[in-house]
Each structure stands twice: as C-alpha cells, then as structure tokens.
C-alpha cells in the first residue's frame, strides 16, 4: 500500500495528490468567500446609511473619513466583491475543490491524469490571489472599474490610473490559466481514466456538470484572456484596441469589441459555475429521495444543449449597448431557447423527488434550496432576456437581484451542499446536523430577504453601482428597502458564522465518519473516509449506474453500489 510523502512540504503544501489539492482549493475559496462577503456588507451598509461611519470596523478600514465609506472606495468595493466572489471564491470551491476531490474518486482512478499540472494549477491560483490582495495596498487602491472591466474606463490610464487596476487584471489572467489547467485535467480524467464498466451512461451527474463546465472553460476562457491582455496593452503600452475618441492616441479602436469579447466568455461563465451545481443537485436529490435520478439521459442531454447554447447568447448582455436591434432579437430568441432544456432537467429534479422516501439531511436541504432559488433566478432570467423589458431594467438592481439568485444564491447553496455532503469523505469526520440545519434555515431566510428586496428596488429604477440612492428624488421611497436589505445582509453574514463554527469544530472533534454515511452508490463511497493515499487498492469494476436506489428485489437494504455484481443479474429480471 502506498504511503503519503514523509516531508511536510511534499505532503501538505506542494502535494500532487488530488485530495490535498482539493482541500487547498477549498480553504482558499472559503477564505475569499468570507472576504467577498464582508465587502458585500460594507456595500450594503453604505447603501442603507449613506456616508455614515461604519460601526466597529469603520475607523480601522477608513480612518481618513472617520469610518465612513469614501466615494473613491465604493467602486473598489463592488469591483473587488464581484471579482473575488466569481473568480477566487466560487470557482475554487466548485471547480477547484469539488472537481479535484470528486473526479478521480468517482471515476475509480488513483489520481488525476496529470498530477503535477494539477499542483501547478493550484499554485497559479494562489499567486493570482496574492496579487489581488497586494492590489489593495498599492497607491491608488484596488481596481474600481467593475468586475466586468469595461473599456474604455478600464483601458485608459487617464480615467483609471492606479496600478491596482493592472494587478487585478494580472490576477485574473493567472487565475484563468489556473482554471484552464484544471479543466484540462478534468476533461482528460473523466473521459480517459474511467474504471472498467463505468460507461458514460453510468457517470454521476456531478461529473457531467464538471465536464461540461471544463469544456466551456477550455473554449471561452482563452477569449477573455486575450481581451484582458489587450486591455493591459491599452493601459501600459499605448495601444488603443478598445479606446476611441479624445482618449485614444490614434483612431480605429472599438469600445464595443471589448464587450463582445468579455461576454463571449462572461455568459458561458455563469454556466461554468452553475453546471457543476446542477449536476450535484441531480445526484443529491436521487441519493436522498432513495430513487434513481428521473430522466437521467434527458438531464445529461439538456445540460449538453445548454452548454452549446450558452456560447451563442452573449449579446443579451448588450441590448442597450447600441448593438444592432435585429442582432439583439436573434440573441433574445436564442436566450429564451435555453429555457426549454432548463425546464426539462428542472422537471426531472421534481420527478426524482416525486413520491421518494425523502431524507432531509443537511446536504439535501441545501440541494432543495438550490431548486427553489434557481427557479426564481431562472424565471427572472426570462424577463431579462426580453429586449423590450431589458431596456427598462438594464443597469438596475433587478439585474443584480437576478444575477445573485442564480450565481450567488444557487451557486452558494450548491457549494454548501458540496461541503456538507463531502465533508465526511474528505476529513473522515461528520459535521453537526443541528448546526447545519440552523445554518441552512437562517441562510435561506436572509438570502431571500436580501435578493428579493433587490427585485423591488430594481423595478423601481434603482441603478446598480450607485453609492447613495438618497440623492435621487425618485429613489427616496426606496431607502427603507435599502435599510431592510442591509439588515438582512447582516443577518445572512452572521448566519455564516454557524458554518465556520461547524466546519472548524467538526474538523477538530467531529464524530468519526463511516465509509458511506449517506448510503450512496457511486465509487467514492466504496473506499474508507478519508480515502487511502491512492484511493483504490485495485481498479474497481462497475456494474451499474450511480443511482440504484429503492431497488425492490433487494432484501439487505434498498440500494446497490456501482461495484455490486448483483446489478448484472437484477438488470436482467
């Protein structure tokens, strides 16, 4: 049997073992999640009580203004909140940690296809995140042009002079390379290293989600990387790719081109983050309803359809940009088409739940939470997709609310479902279900209070990215809502302390976890918790799909493991 490397550095720091790398990603992601969350609280404080000193931490963060958010700091807050949450919190947790941990175990492999590349991928993310942190302390402060880095605001040093802006772009570029390396491993491992018998039709849905997500990254992330390098050239080398008019050193630059390049990646990006969650939810609903995933094949195919469609709908972010309205109409129709496959797998989720023997464990609660919040996020997405309606709500908090229901609420709940479900396997200890339920209940309540409030103020015309709504006469009636969202956000933030407490406490003295605490059928749960250094003593053989729950012929339980040879005979009868 293989032993882990003896030296501390090789074992825990520069490890090539996918399980260690996954934990590195997880801890990094949680750290940045907390950081991005605290920034969101500062943003909400400023909107609720404009220019008032922040209690407790204000004097520390903004000593120059007596503890109030300054006009210069506000754009930095929303920029870094977005950038950190999307690229350094959610991506590391869902792709980095979930991808790295689950893929080799679920396909029955000893490790990823390219372990050293895997290690490099994490350390590039680490380097990128360090650059991001440094950017707060350079003269001029962190980036303030919005996480979308829109040109020409971003591409001219006349209007965004600080080096913090360059460091932000550089950090994102390093993260992009890291994600590409990770994706290369995910695609290769899922497609080439599956255990004997693990055909594509027997793959857990989580792996399908991660696979599609990695494909989207491979295809579209390089496009935005190219665009980011061009922005850097515009800033520091005197080019004018995305600058026009008086700011430009010479003619010919196209501002709109940047938006096309950014959203060409930016729209797939939302699916990059949500596809693994969809897959995970599909698996969890099946495990905890003790029923096979309803319409497995249809779910896989509809996720594929969305993967393809997601690459050709980016124009719906640009309806008001001055793009040709006829082109906009094409983008509108394509965008609405996405609701068809979405409805298919959504109904499959409900079909899985239908008359199931539902076990309301903590991961199941979060999975059901995803079902609920994603329904709201998805349905409001239809509003945004309509050209006529989009013109009205463009650049308002309605869009922010929609974005957060899909990307903050759904993806965050997905990340928590992943952590609660896999924690016993990763650390060999169980998390407290009571604290977990409390964490879910409070998060669910506050999260909906925060983001549904954004729909209300958004429909009233509340612009995004403004620091003080009270200066606008027509927004004065909305200020009470801003206060409400602010306090709800504080409640949401505080309820996460339950999670941190549960995480750390369970890590240190949680109950020892059995190999298969959830009675799940996929390959990862056939090995001990935590798994041995190289996962499997021998290459496992797979005889059925991952969702063989509620099998009536069995007398010793209601489910079959994928490695159970009885599947062959049962399938015949």
């Amino acid at each position, binding site marked *: 049997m293989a032993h882990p490397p003896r030296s501390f550095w090789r074992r825990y720091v520069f490890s090539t073992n996918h399980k260690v790398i996954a934990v590195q990603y997880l801890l990094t992601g949680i750290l940045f999640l907390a950081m991005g969350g605290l920034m969101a609280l500062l943003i909400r404080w400023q909107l609720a009580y404009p220019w008032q000193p922040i209690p407790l931490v204000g004097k520390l963060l903004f000593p120059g203004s007596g503890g109030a958010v300054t006009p210069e700091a506000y754009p930095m807050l929303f920029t870094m909140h977005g950038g950190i949450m999307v690229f350094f919190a959610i991506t590391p947790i869902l792709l980095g940690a979930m991808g790295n941990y689950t893929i080799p175990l679920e396909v029955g492999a000893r490790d990823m296809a390219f372990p050293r590349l895997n290690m490099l991928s994490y350390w590039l993310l680490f380097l990128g995140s360090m650059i991001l942190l440094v950017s707060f302390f350079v003269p001029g402060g962190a980036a303030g042009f919005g996480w979308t880095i829109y040109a020409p605001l971003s591409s001219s040093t006349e209007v965004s002079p600080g080096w913090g802006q360059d460091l932000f772009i550089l950090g994102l570029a390093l993260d992009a390379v890291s994600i590409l390396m990770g994706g290369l491993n995910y695609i290769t491992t899922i497609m080439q290293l599956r255990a004997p*018998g693990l055909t594509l039709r027997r793959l857990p849905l989580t792996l399908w989600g991660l696979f599609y997500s990695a494909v989207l990254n491979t295809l579209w992330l390089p496009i935005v990387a*190219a665009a980011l390098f*061009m922005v850097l050239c515009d800033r520091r080398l005197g080019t004018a790719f995305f600058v026009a008019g008086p700011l430009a050193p010479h003619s010919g*630059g*196209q501002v709109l081109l940047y938006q096309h390049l950014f959203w060409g990646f930016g729209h797939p990006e939302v699916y990059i983050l949500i596809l693994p969650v969809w897959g995970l939810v599909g698996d969890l609903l099946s495990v905890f309803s003790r029923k096979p995933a309803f319409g497995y094949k249809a779910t896989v195919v509809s996720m594929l359809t969305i993967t393809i469609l997601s690459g050709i709908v980016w124009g719906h972010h640009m309806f008001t940009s001055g793009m040709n309205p006829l082109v906009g109409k094409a983008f509108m129709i394509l965008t609405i088409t996405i609701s068809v496959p979405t409805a298919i797998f959504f109904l499959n989720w409900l079909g899985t739940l239908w008359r199931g023997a539902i076990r309301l464990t903590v991961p199941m609660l979060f999975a059901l939470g995803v079902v609920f919040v994603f329904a709201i996020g998805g349905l409001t997405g239809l509003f945004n997709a309509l050209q006529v309606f989009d013109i009205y709500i463009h650049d308002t908090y309605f869009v922010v609310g929609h974005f957060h229901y899909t990307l903050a609420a759904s993806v965050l709940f997905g990340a928590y479902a992943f952590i609660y479900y896999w924690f016993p396997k990763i650390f060999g200890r169980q998390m407290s279900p009571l604290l977990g339920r409390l964490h879910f209940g409070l998060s669910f309540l506050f999260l909906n209070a925060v983001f549904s409030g954004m729909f209300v103020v958004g429909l009233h015309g509340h612009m995004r990215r403004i620091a003080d709504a009270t200066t606008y006469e027509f927004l004065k009636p909305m200020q009470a809502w801003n206060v409400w969202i602010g306090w709800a956000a504080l409640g949401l933030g505080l309820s996460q302390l339950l999670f941190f407490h549960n995480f750390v406490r369970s890590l240190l003295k949680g109950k020892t976890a059995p190999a298969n605490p959830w009675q799940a059928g996929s390959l990862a749960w056939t090995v001990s918790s935590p798994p041995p250094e190289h996962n499997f003593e021998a290459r496992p053989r797979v005889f059925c799909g991952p969702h063989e729950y509620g099998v009536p012929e069995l007398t010793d339980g209601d489910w079959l493991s994928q490695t159970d040879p009885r599947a*062959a005979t049962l399938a015949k009868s």
Partner: protein
Amino acid sequence: MEHVAEGTVESPLLDIPVGKFGMWVFLISEIMFFTGLIGSYIVLRLGSTGWPQPRTILNTPLLGLNTVVLLSSSLTMVLALAAAQQDRQRALQRYLLLTALLGLTFLGIKGYDYVHMWHRGFTISSSLFGSCYYLLTGFHALHVLSGVILLLYLFTAASRGLFSAANYGRIEYSGLYWHFIDIVWVMLFAILCLV
C-alpha cells in the same frame, strides 16, 4: 450477461494515451486564444478606414524567409519523431537540437525585424496596425520561445537516453504543439503581411 461483459472492459472515450488527449485539449484552448486575438484583429481592421497596405510597411521578404525557417523546423520535428520511433538515438538528438536552433533562428530574425521596424517609427503605439502586428506576432513569438525551451529540455532528456522505440510519447505530443505554432505563424503571415 451483457452487463457482466461490460464490467470487464476499460472504457476511455478515445483509444489514445492520456498525454496525447491532454495535449489536444490544451491545443483547443490555444486555438481559442488565438481566435480571440485574430478575431479582434479582423473586426478592428474591417471597422477602420484607411488601413495601410501591409507591403508598404512590413519587410515581407524577411518575414517570408522566417516562414520557411519555421516550416523547415516542423520537418525536422517530424524527423526527430521518426528517429525516436526507430530507436536511432544520435539522429533523435540531432533533429531535436536542429529544431530548437531553427526556432531560435526564427526568434532572431523576428527580433531583428522588431528593432528595424521600431526604428522606422512603426511601433506598438504608432497606429492600430502596429498595435495588432506587435500583439499578434508578440504572443506567437512567446509561444515559439516556450517551444524552444521545451525542445531543449527534450534534447537533454534524449541525451540521457530517456526515449526509445517503446517510449516516444513526449516527443510526439511536443511535436503537436510545435506544428500548431507553425500553423499559427502561417496564418498570421497571411493575414498580417499578404492581404
């Protein structure tokens, strides 16, 4: 019975080594990177008025010579792979070194071209054409540079006798990358210098 039979066979998607599979996935993302750059160039060029005739600015014969240099390096790369497959160690080392030297020659000519152009006032910030020219060829040159480093690494590995007729995977996959760089250059030469 069908299920039992299925349980005994390995099930990769494609019957190729993982290294090759991974290299193709990597090359797809590389293709998309250059698609982003070249696509932007096309959009910018079609959208601007009075684009200069490339031949009046660029040193087309010199860049044509560079195309020949890089194309012949692809040939020596193929010969290196053939030598590895036939276990001809000396030939393998020779061709790997030759390929790396041709890559360096390409970079040398490229550097001369840059300096020359720069002195004539054609810089990255002098015009949109200049920006596109240096951006596209610059990123390509960086790829050539990393390819040369890869080749020199392979050369030292070959000198230590790490490759054989049974073990030539890394030569083959690096060759894929080298040919890719070559194809990108041919495209850049055509769209930047000829049309």
